[in-house]
């Protein structure tokens, strides 16, 4: 029984980190109505950025945040502005422009292969890392410390995004644009700038996720793919565009992955994850926490 609770707690913690990696995906989809297939690659790039920041400066791993999050915001902002926006303009009247999806897939390939070229295929782990393997002992239970911090980062990031979208002038403008981009431009909102900002925010959250992952996760050129697939499942489970949904969707997956193996072989837990994914698509395509009226 104690094992089960311990697994459940660690599953919730890891799941919230999955949710954190998927937050950017859901934000970008919510605003641009485009699945960003490059999201996992942006997470991977963020992980390399975090890794090298720590490796080169010798800072505490979490201090990398002050460099990685803003750098990834700028990267995402200009990726959208320079690469994606021209295609958006060409497909102005389309609600879910498919060519944009193809372009994000291209970005994914380019980033992954560029990283392979630059840094090679080897797995990298932070040396002398004060967080690796750190455990918190509660009675007889062991809770991973870096995952606990990851959980805190996920909750704080999600709450911060929620408050930003609800309470700030820019956040309201982003929401308005996501609901009706033409009406939003009649309010004086520059929709393309909003897209840049949304893309920047989505990429910056990948940066936050990367900083929390690097202390206990290997860095390698295709690391993003793992999180990409989980991310898609999470945002569909939680409801595309829903911030709280992404967090809860992540936690559901984390729980299935951690508690499941107590009762079955690990391959079965994956089958359950995909089964749940399909079930939600069939029964409630707007996701468990999505809004039915719109995406």
């Amino acid at each position, binding site marked *: 029984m104690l094992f089960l609770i311990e697994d459940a707690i660690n599953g919730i913690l890891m799941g919230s980190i999955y949710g954190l990696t998927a937050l950017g995906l859901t934000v970008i989809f919510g605003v641009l109505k485009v699945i960003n297939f490059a999201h996992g690659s942006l997470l991977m790039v963020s992980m390399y950025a975090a890794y090298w920041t720590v490796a080169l400066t010798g800072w505490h791993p979490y201090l990398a945040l002050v460099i990685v999050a803003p750098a990834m915001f700028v990267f995402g902002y200009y990726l959208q502005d320079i690469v994606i926006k021209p295609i958006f303009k060409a497909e102005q009247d389309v609600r879910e422009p498919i060519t944009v999806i193809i372009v994000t897939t291209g970005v994914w390939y380019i980033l992954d292969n560029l990283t392979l070229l630059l840094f090679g295929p080897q797995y990298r782990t932070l040396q002398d890392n004060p967080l690796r393997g750190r455990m918190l002992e509660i009675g007889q239970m062991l809770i991973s410390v870096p995952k606990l911090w990851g959980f805190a980062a996920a909750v704080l990031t999600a709450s911060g995004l929620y408050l930003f979208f609800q309470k700030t002038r820019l956040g309201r403008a982003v*929401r308005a644009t996501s609901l*009706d981009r*033409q009406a*939003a431009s*009649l309010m*004086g909102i520059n929709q393309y700038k909003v897209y840049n900002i949304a893309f920047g925010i989505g990429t910056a959250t990948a940066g936050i996720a990367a900083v929390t992952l690097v202390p206990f996760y290997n860095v390698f050129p295709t690391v993003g793919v793992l999180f990409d697939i989980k991310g898609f499942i999470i945002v569909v489970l939680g409801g595309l565009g829903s911030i709280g949904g992404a967090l809860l969707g992540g936690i559901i997956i984390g729980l299935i992955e951690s508690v499941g193996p107590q009762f079955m072989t690990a391959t079965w837990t994956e089958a359950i994850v995909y089964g749940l994914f399909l079930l939600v698509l069939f029964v409630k395509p707007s996701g468990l926490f999505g809004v039915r009226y719109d995406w």
Partner: protein
Amino acid sequence: MSFLEVKHLDVFYGDVQVIFDLSMHVDEGEVVSIIGGNGAGKSTLLKALSGLVPPRSGEILFQGRALHRAPPEEIVEEGIVHVPEGRRLFSLMSVKDNLIVGAYNRRADAVKDRTLGEVYELFPRLKEREAQMALTLSGGEQQMVAIGRGLMAKPRLLMLDEPSLGLAPILVKSIFDTLKKIAQAGTTVLLVEQDVKHSLSLSHRGYVLEHGRIVLEGPAADLLNDPHVKTAYLGL
């Protein structure tokens, strides 16, 4: 020089021309109506003026400034505010957030709290409903939000596209009463309407638009008595 001066405007959707060599003007403080049947190009004209559909050729001058190449956000900043056909509210946002987004432009943002008070005074119903999602409002209430959202932008020229569309007669009257109040408060209004009688009786002047061309213009009282307007638009 008029407040708004439109010269030889041509507007296209792709290869299809919808507005032909259109010239018109609006003076400061005026209420001007544009009337015309379905598909005449009334909405397209407003979209050209607000920058949603940039004109192929011609000029749009507002207070002497050329705006025919400006993007919508710059035109709003200049004070031309377009309340679109079909309300186009931000469906999943609250009434209050819809109104506040209306004040997004820098000029309006600085005074948005005061303007919000004025809008609530004009539409007390919206104050009661401020926390409700726009989607759940009745048609009349949605139109109030659409107009209120336009006012939040601090318009110098308020352009309304069929504000009475789809409303019960009693609500139509109250919407026109509201427009009268807005005009009397000093806002210049360009009104597109199919309810010709109501709109012309509110207006100083009017233009009749048919197949993308202005076929008739003049003081509203004259248009109301014009035989063509009477048969084609007033059903007399």
